């Protein structure tokens, strides 16, 4: 088993180049995720959290600052850093297994990874659907297939970009539990982007609360509550209030 990687984000600022001006989306982001940490990036929608994941994935270089994995600067994409997107982004002309094996196939190590592919499919509970096509899957199953596709590559950093955002609430609860047990088994470093305070608190060890665009880190909150967590746990409820207040959404309880 491969263990999680240490992620260092040092003074990262990023801006999108629009037609005439630059639109700043991230401002002076600084944090370190230790190997095996589960970090949630929480913020209002459109604040730039997903952009941060794209930088960690190596899809874009930051305008300013540095991102390091185990001390080595990120220069491009790498299968050890995979994203699970909000949409499953499965390839519709490939079966579930065909989707899951794209990573090893692209690297030319398909034969060596055959067992790993089957293991990932059964880990997400899709072994019976290995030959199914994406259009035959439910929303939850499609996200599981997308998760299997990421896990096959033994990611050392798994990025979750609101992966449960479009699922119905029951599937969502089940998948939250599955994600935690998966992370406990595999010990990758997890980065979760979400705008759901409760989800962040249920899953993560640490919640980074981001401001409106351009995003800055407004608070770095440790969640010490032991797992399995209950959403009505008194400690979590207090943290939830604290975070909502930070986001300017305090409830007059």
């Amino acid at each position, binding site marked *: 088993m491969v263990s999680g990687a240490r992620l260092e984000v040092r003074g990262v600022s990023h801006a999108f180049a629009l037609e005439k001006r630059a639109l700043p989306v991230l401002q002076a982001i600084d944090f370190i995720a230790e190997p095996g940490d589960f970090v949630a990036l929480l913020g209002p929608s459109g604040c730039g959290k997903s952009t941060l994941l794209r930088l960690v994935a190596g899809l874009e270089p930051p305008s300013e600052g540095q991102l390091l994995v185990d001390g080595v600067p990120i220069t491009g994409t790498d299968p050890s850093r995979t994203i699970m997107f909000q949409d499953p982004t499965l390839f519709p*002309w490939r079966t579930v297994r065909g989707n899951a094996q794209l990573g090893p196939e692209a690297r030319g190590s398909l034969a060596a990874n055959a067992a790993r592919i089957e293991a990932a499919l059964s880990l997400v509970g899709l072994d019976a659907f290995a030959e199914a096509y994406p259009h035959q899957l439910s929303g939850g199953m499609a996200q599981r297939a997308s998760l299997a596709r990421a896990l096959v590559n033994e990611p050392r950093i798994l990025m979750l970009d609101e992966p449960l955002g479009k699922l119905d609430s029951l599937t969502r609860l089940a998948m939250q539990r599955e994600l935690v047990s998966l992370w406990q088994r595999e010990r990758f470093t997890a980065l979760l982007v979400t705008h759901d305070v409760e989800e962040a608190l249920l899953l993560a060890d640490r919640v980074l609360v981001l401001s409106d665009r351009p995003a800055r880190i407004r608070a770095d909150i440790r969640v010490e509550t032991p797992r399995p967590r209950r959403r009505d746990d008194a400690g979590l409820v207090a943290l939830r209030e604290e975070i909502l207040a930070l986001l300017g959404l305090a409830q007059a309880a």
Partner: protein
Amino acid sequence: MNATEDPRWFRALLALLAILTGLLLLALPLAAVFAEALRRGWDVARAAILEPDTLAAIRMTLIVAAISVPLNTVGGLAAAWCIAKHDFPGKRLLLVLVELPLSVSPVIAGLVFVLVFGLQGWLGPWLQARGIQVIFALPGLVLATLFVTFPFVARTVLPLMQDQGRAEEEAAATLGASGWQIFQRVTLPNIRWALLAGVLLCNARAMGEFGAVSVVSGHIRGQTNTMPLHVEILYNEYQFAGAAAVAALLALLGLVTLVAKSVLERLSGRRVSGAEGAPMRMLTVVSGGLLLPFVQV
């Protein structure tokens, strides 16, 4: 009857009108071509097609299409890919250029090539000094065809590429696929049916093109004549049987295009998987490249 539905008689009338128009304007002339070709019997039609100058025209048409369709497939794909997936200065200009051949009369396109490459043209003396003949020869025919058929692949593929955005390609990138692998395993499968339709249209036009080719060809029998040009020559010489026979051959190949296209649409509806789809795809590309011109006489 629900609120958005028209009365039954009205729908029937519209359908009847459409079918009548189709029969009168499309099916009837097509039938007439075949009837005229076979009026003096099968042997006369066969003899007209096996005549050396006609065979040369058929060969020339196939050669021109075999060169220009692959070139425009690659060029059209590249242009569509640049426009859909990247931002760069001059993107609008490229889009306009892609569509230019659709708005310019093919005759003008042919004339432009004569003005550039012809004996009196800009590059004429230079080319002549080196013994290279472009106009009134194969290179000119290919250039004119390339110009006229350039938009077909690019325009059929572009909307699909723009629609799809970058999400799937980025997903593949994060899984460790290289640029070429992403193109091969994600971009290309995504657009394959549109691409094939574009290649078919491009090929149809390449084989049927008349105007631009007519200007640069010089109509040298047995040498620079293509099928559509040959039909015109035969017709002008009152060789109606020959003209009809060659036209019928073009039309027949056009009908094959229609069949190939509906087979394609069927296949795309069935979501053929990569493994099963590959041989079928190859088959269609090969047959599309060689056999399927569209009627344009």
